[in-house]
Structure formats: structure tokens, C-alpha cells
């Protein structure tokens, strides 16, 4: 296998890495906000339930969640994930969606805590000012608070996002044939080790793009500086 063959094979795996990354981000970011509202809810049972859930997910390894999603349907419910009719017999799709589910739940929990920190950092006076001006609660949140929150949480969100890029390698343990899996496969079939380290370059380049993007966004948002 020459350099080009290896690059192509790794790229085919990297497509899955990127897909997993993008879908996780698109789904986890809004879901995280839902969790935040749950945690901050004045209705105690909902708040307790969400906080308990976030505690459990944050307190246990993602690797374990991947196993739960992929194996529990078959072992406990006698309904193997790969045979679910929605996947139409496509086992690769089944493993991908299973892994995606675990990633989304995980990252939504982390995001929800970042959002909560951001929302709680807005001074109470702003809410009072809004009330005085006759704004409704949702008007205050969406028109006054939210944009300030977005700016404040940008740095930790960038952190999580970059961690997510690298965490996708964990999906290899549940048969998502992403780039790390591919590089191991080359090692096992061709007995060459450098592709394993070469795969790191792909992550690095991708993260360089993300870093630039987040810096750009932060610059745009610095417009709000008072």
C-alpha cells in the first residue's frame, strides 16, 4: 500500500468522522438548550429529573454509553439494533445511528451546563429592567439575554467542539468504520504502522479549520462589548 492508497482509505474513514461530528453538533446544541431549561425549571420534579439525568451521563464514560446503546436493545429487549426495520438491513447505518445517539445525549448534557453557566452569569438587573419596560419573560430571554449568553459561552463551546472531533474515535469500538478504525485495519492487514500516526494529521487539519472559525465568530461577537 503506497501513500496514495493509505490516504484514500483514511479519507473514506474520515468522511464518517466528519459526519458523526456534524450530526452530533447539530443535534446536541439545541437539545442541550432543552436540558438547560429543564435544569433551570422552577417546577421541582422536572428540574430534579433533568439534573439527575445530566449527573448520570456526565458521571459515566462515553465508551460505556456506546455499549449500552448498541448492545442493550438485543440483550435486554431481544431486539438487536442492527435488525431494527428503520435501518432496512444496513448494519453500518445501525451502528452509526447508535453511536450518534450516544454522542448527542452526552454532548447535549455538557452543552446544557455550559449554557446554564452563561445564562446565570447575566445580572439580575437586566431582567428587572426588561420587566420595567413591560417586556414578557420570553422577550427578555430572546431579545436581551440570549445574544450576551452566546458571546460569553463561545470559548467553552469551542473547547467542547474540538474535544468532540477527537472523541469520535471512540465510535470505533462499536464498529463505526471511521478513520481510527481504518488506520488499525491497515495495520492489521498490511502490517504497516505509520498510517496510525498519519491519521492524526487529519484531525489536526480539521481542528485548525475549527479553531479559525471560532476565532472568527468571537471577533464578530466582540461587537457587543460594552
Amino acid at each position, binding site marked *: 500500500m503506497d501513500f496514495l492508497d493509505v490516504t484514500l482509505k483514511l479519507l473514506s474513514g474520515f468522511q464518517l468522522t466528519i459526519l458523526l461530528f456534524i450530526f452530533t453538533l447539530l443535534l446536541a446544541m439545541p437539545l442541550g438548550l432543552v436540558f438547560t431549561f429543564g435544569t433551570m425549571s422552577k417546577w421541582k420534579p422536572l428540574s430534579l429529573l433533568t439534573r439527575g439525568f445530566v449527573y448520570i451521563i456526565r458521571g459515566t464514560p462515553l465508551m460505556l454509553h456506546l455499549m449500552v446503546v448498541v448492545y442493550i436493545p438485543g440483550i435486554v429487549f*431481544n431486539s438487536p439494533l442492527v435488525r431494527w426495520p428503520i435501518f432496512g438491513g444496513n448494519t453500518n447505518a445501525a451502528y452509526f445511528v447508535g453511536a450518534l445517539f450516544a454522542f448527542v445525549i452526552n454532548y447535549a448534557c455538557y452543552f446544557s451546563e455550559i449554557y446554564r453557566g452563561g445564562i446565570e452569569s447575566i445580572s439580575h438587573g437586566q431582567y428587572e429592567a426588561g420587566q420595567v419596560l413591560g417586556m414578557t419573560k420570553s422577550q427578555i430571554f430572546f431579545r436581551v439575554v440570549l445574544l450576551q449568553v452566546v458571546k460569553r459561552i463561545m470559548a467553552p463551546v469551542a473547547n467542547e467542539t474540538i474535544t468532540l472531533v477527537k472523541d469520535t474515535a471512540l465510535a470505533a469500538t462499536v464498529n463505526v468504520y471511521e478513520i481510527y478504525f481504518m488506520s488499525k485495519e491497515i495495520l492489521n492487514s498490511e502490517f504497516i504502522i505509520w498510517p496510525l500516526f498519519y491519521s492524526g494529521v487529519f484531525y489536526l487539519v480539521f481542528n485548525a479549520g475549527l479553531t479559525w472559525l471560532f476565532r472568527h465568530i468571537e471577533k464578530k461577537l466582540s461587537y457587543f462589548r460594552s
Partner: protein
Amino acid sequence: MKKILIAVLALVTMLSCFTSCGDSSDWEYVEGNGKLTIGITIYDPMNYYDENEELIGFDTEFAKAVCEKLGVKPEFKVIDWKNKETELKAKNIDVIWNGLTVTEERRENMDFSTSYLINKQCIVIKKEDAEKYTSTESLKDALLAAEAESAGETAIKADANLKNATYNPAESQQNAFVALLAGNVDAIVVDYTMAKATCGSGDYKDFVMIEGIELTQEEYAIGFRVGSDMTAKVNKIIEELVADGTLKKIADKYEMTELYEEALGK
């Protein structure tokens, strides 16, 4: 939140009925799916890719021959070897068929078919150490690796000399090879079939097997779900494949004639 939970649970129950209600036996389940999902890893010479990226190997061809007789399509699924028991139990795969060693501990989690190959263990070292390490005696102070829970580990523990060496279990046989390459260990104990295919190629070009060492032998078999009626059915097909020479032909092709004859041939 609760409503969502109830909805999810209802969905799962519904789906479980879709897929599994009415399966009275494992074979009927597989037959109903129309395919046998076979859990493998990429493992030269059992299951690996040729130049055209086609899956070939002893177990690949063997499994195809058995599936033809069963009348179902073989579907090869590359899995993480550490999770093979769980994959099998979760019904994500139907059999484990990838140079699987028969061990007593494994019987708790799976049923085995008739053993079809002898799994000899051998010691692999770097060429530069060939004069230093010639026997198990010379390895008694060395650093050793083998796959955790593998036949290699059993061989190390059973050998009077090797059991005194410093032993670190590796996650897989492939990782043991990497450990040897990195110099983290002096010698590894791995399957003979694998060592034969691996030593001398790629980054392992300077690896050699120590000749003339007898270690404990084990056997390769196919792993089925515990209590599956597939086991008896496949065993019968194996008998047929032995009788008509198909299996011998596959063994010849992958240079495993001797290992095959010791296990099954007369």
C-alpha cells in the same frame, strides 16, 4: 421528559415485536433474516483483503461454503474483538468465525462447533535476538506479551520457563506485534497461523518465529449463541465439507493443510 421516555419505551417494545416475535429457534431467526451475520476481524490468513479489496481467507471461504449449504447469504461484519461475546448475545452478529480458540471459560458465553483447525502457538522475536532467544529457557527473564485471555496466554502460564517471565497481556494479538516492534517486549506468543502470515512483511519484516519450541496446542472452532440449534446444523455441514474435500482444498490454498489434517482430516 417523562412523556418522551414513555414514547421511547413504547417504540422499543414495538420494534422488539417486529423483529423477534415468533422466533422459536436460533436457526429460524437466521433463516428468517435470510442471512448469517458473521463477526470477524481483519486477520491474515483467516479473513483479510486481497489487492482488489475483496475479503478472502480461510474462514471467509469456509463460511461462504457453509452458508451456501444453509441457503442463507453470508454477511461479514468487522467487529471489535473485545466485544465479540456481547455482539453475539445482542444478536448484532449470529456467529463468531475468525480463528476463534476453544477455551473452557468461553463456553459460558458461547457454544462451539466441531474444531476445524489446530491452533499452534509460537514465539515471535526480533531477528537481532535470534541468537539470544533460542528456547523457552532463554526467555525466562524476558518481557513477554500475548493477547489477554488468548491461547498464547494459556501457553505462557502452562510453560515451566515462560511463566517466570514478566508477562503483560495485550489488547489483541495485533497489539502484541506492535509492542514487539516498539521494543516494549522481547517476545510475543501468538497464533502460528497469524505469525506465519505476518513475520517478514511490512514493518514486521525483521520478525522471526523461534523454531522447534512445543507449546500447548488449542483448537479453532466457530462460536454460536449458547443453546443454539445452529451448532448441530453447521456441524453436519462441516462433516459434508470434510467428506467431499471442500475444506481440504481451502486449507491447501492457505497453506494450512497440516493444521487441518491434525484437527479433522484422516
